[in-house]
């Protein structure tokens, strides 16, 4: 709020400009952890498309590939077809439960450590510090007039940012096409326009989000901060200021009793521009950098670490009344997190089992609807079926088709002499089959019938139930 010259309150604007944030450099355990996570996650992101995986001559040799044109998803030894999308659904459910688990135990740990927005922003701030200097130098640079030095520093920074953005967008498209081929095509200008457009868009968003939007994305654009409250409770570990220990704050020599010397270290390192001492805030992504900053100061003034620390709200309240704080692991291992872990692991195990018992051949049988049966000249009844045989192998295979029924039924494949069907590599073949009763068998109603398919010289099998329909009784 601002006061006008006459002492009255001036109207505040309805729209506010972003207040620039200049996070100071910080050292410590959490900072190191975050550097490691940054290196590992970015490493996985940039390197993965280049890993090769031999699948034989008919299939791509890229370990991780989303092949939209041929509707296949490859992940090392796993190949997913569109009709097996439930695996992806299962992964998404696991990701959701994993997020519940981590949030109930550790609050917004995803936001603080692993979210791409946080990771790339960290990288962008690192570049910024290398080029323009630490917090105070950057504030000075912002305030000074544009001269040759400022122009040079700014242009250098923006160029490096743009290159990082380009690498980010560039890596993204490699997940959707053979990386070495696409890389060559991109350089020679022969790649598909969609590849260039995707790279341009992702370069632009990375550049803008990491360089200029930063905390604005988390505060105004991301729905997660709004959802998280539903998953956190008073026993969730979160970055908190031990107010009972720190207050009243003040310079040490002023004779105050609190541990907080009001050095503003926690505020200066905060990438979100908040003061953690004001309590839990929507803006806080729990990156824990304020813990590192405060621990450093506490060590220097000879006080125990942890004035700002991972602590649950319940424990903090109890500690304020003098109760001892239980070990951290008791706050991570509790019924709620165990339940999430059990659900998460249950789905994971179920999916692994499903993948392991999955057959390399799949069969679907659709009975003709119109007409349901045909009378032949011999008086026998014949039913028609559309059969699809899926061959998930990287080469063509032969499959024997057969059926099992209480009634004596003859199988005939349209356009084939015998009951052997060849299916091409990694393909589904659709065939028509005719099943006939014996003349004079007088079948009525629905007769259950199992159709099976077996790969030649292999244990791969698939079966499905269908029925044989005769005239109504």
């Amino acid at each position: 709020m601002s006061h006008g010259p006459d002492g009255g309150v001036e109207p505040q604007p309805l729209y506010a400009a972003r207040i620039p944030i200049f996070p100071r450099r910080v050292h410590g355990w959490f900072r190191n952890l975050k550097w490691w996570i940054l290196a590992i996650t970015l490493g996985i992101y940039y390197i993965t498309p280049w890993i090769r995986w031999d699948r034989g001559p008919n299939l791509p040799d890229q370990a991780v590939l989303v092949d939209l044109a041929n509707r296949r998803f490859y992940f090392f030894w796993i190949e997913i077809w569109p009709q097996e999308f439930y695996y992806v659904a299962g992964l998404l459910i696991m990701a959701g439960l994993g997020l519940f688990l981590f949030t109930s135990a550790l609050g917004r740990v995803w936001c603080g450590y692993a979210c791409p927005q946080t990771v790339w922003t960290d990288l962008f701030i690192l570049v910024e510090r290398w080029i323009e200097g630490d917090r105070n130098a950057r504030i000075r640079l912002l305030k000074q007039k544009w001269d040759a030095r400022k122009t040079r520093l700014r242009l250098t920074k923006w160029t490096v940012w743009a290159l990082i953005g380009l690498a980010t967008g560039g890596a993204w498209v490699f997940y959707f096409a053979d990386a070495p081929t696409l890389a060559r095509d991109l350089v020679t200008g022969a790649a598909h326009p969609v590849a260039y457009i995707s790279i341009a868009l992702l370069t632009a968003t990375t550049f803008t989000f990491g360089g200029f939007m930063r905390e604005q994305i988390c505060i105004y654009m991301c729905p997660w901060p709004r959802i998280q409250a539903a998953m956190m409770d008073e026993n969730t570990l979160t970055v908190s200021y031990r107010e009972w220990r720190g207050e009243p704050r003040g310079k040490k020599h002023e004779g105050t009793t609190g541990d907080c010397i009001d050095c503003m270290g926690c505020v200066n390192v905060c990438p979100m521009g908040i003061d953690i001492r004001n309590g839990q805030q929507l803006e806080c992504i729990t990156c824990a950098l304020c813990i590192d900053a405060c621990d450093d100061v506490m060590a220097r003034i000879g006080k125990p670490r942890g004035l700002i620390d991972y602590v649950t709200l319940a424990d903090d309240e109890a500690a304020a009344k003098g109760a001892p704080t239980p070990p951290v692991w008791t706050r991570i291992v509790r019924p709620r997190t165990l339940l999430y872990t059990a659900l998460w692991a249950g789905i994971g195990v179920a999916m692994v089992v499903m993948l392991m018992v999955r057959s390399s051949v799949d069969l679907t049988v659709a009975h003709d609807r119109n007409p349901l049966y045909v009378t032949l000249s011999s008086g026998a009844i014949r039913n028609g079926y559309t059969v699809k045989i899926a061959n998930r192998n990287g080469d063509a295979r032969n499959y024997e088709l057969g059926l099992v029924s209480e009634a004596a039924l003859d199988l005939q494949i349209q356009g084939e002499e015998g009951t052997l069907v060849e299916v091409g590599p990694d393909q589904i073949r659709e065939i028509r089959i005719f099943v006939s009763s014996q003349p004079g068998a007088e079948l009525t109603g629905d007769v259950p019938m199992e159709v099976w398919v077996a790969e030649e010289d292999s244990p791969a099998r698939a079966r499905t139930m269908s029925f044989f329909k005769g005239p109504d009784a």
Partner: protein
Amino acid sequence: MAGKDPELDKPTGVMTTGHEWDGIRELNNPLPRWWLWTFYATIFWALVYAIAYPAWPLISQATQGLLGHDQRIEVAEEMTAADQAREVYRAQIASMDLQEVQNDPELARFAMGSGAATFRTYCAQCHGAGAQGHPGYPNLLDDAWLWGGDLDAIQTTITHGIRSPDDDDTRIGDMLAFGRDGLLERPDIAAVVEHVLSLSGQDHDPELAETGATVFADNCATCHGEDGTGLRELGAPNLTDAIWLYGGDRATITETVVNGRSGMMPNWSPRLTEEQIKEVALYVHSLGGGE
């Protein structure tokens, strides 16, 4: 809404906007300015879009847009492109004989799909969507054929039709109206019907059937054959099997003998192209009864 001076809201420490609705005041937590600019940008985009693309409805049509975009034209272009892609197959099918097309997996697949579409457009009205037929309109799924069920016979039937007045090469063969035209007396008709019932192993009067056998030999065997197995050159059906075009019960057979039968199928040669007819022939041949 009443306008008031903004004031400080004590519990939150936030200024109000000065807007008030029935005593409810609004806190002013300012939106980011970039959000406002994004909002303006979307308005600008909407304006550009409305000018560039067809947008505003007028009395007889909408504004056309500066880019001249038209989804109808797009569809027409895509249809033309699809037709041209089909032309490659059609040309091959036109120049090959049916057996060759059937042996070429790619061409056969194209012909089946295309033939099925043509069948549903032109043939399904009489033969049914599933080609199962109706009384008087043959079932094309079974293994009984009046005029032959190999590829060439089916092609000939589709091309020239059956008893089609517009085609000189049409298939001809008449079941005479033995009763109505006085060719057979009533008792003879009753007897021959019993004989026909006996041919397909249905319940019949053996005494009458024996009389009927003579009547059959004198009047029917010319077309249907001595043993009643039919004659494809004349489209005379096999009377010994389980399949009946009009019905195999006593009343329907009597009606057939009394009034005769002469179903008609149009000649499709001028209406469908030669490739289309070939495709339909391949499709019909694949339905289960092809010879």
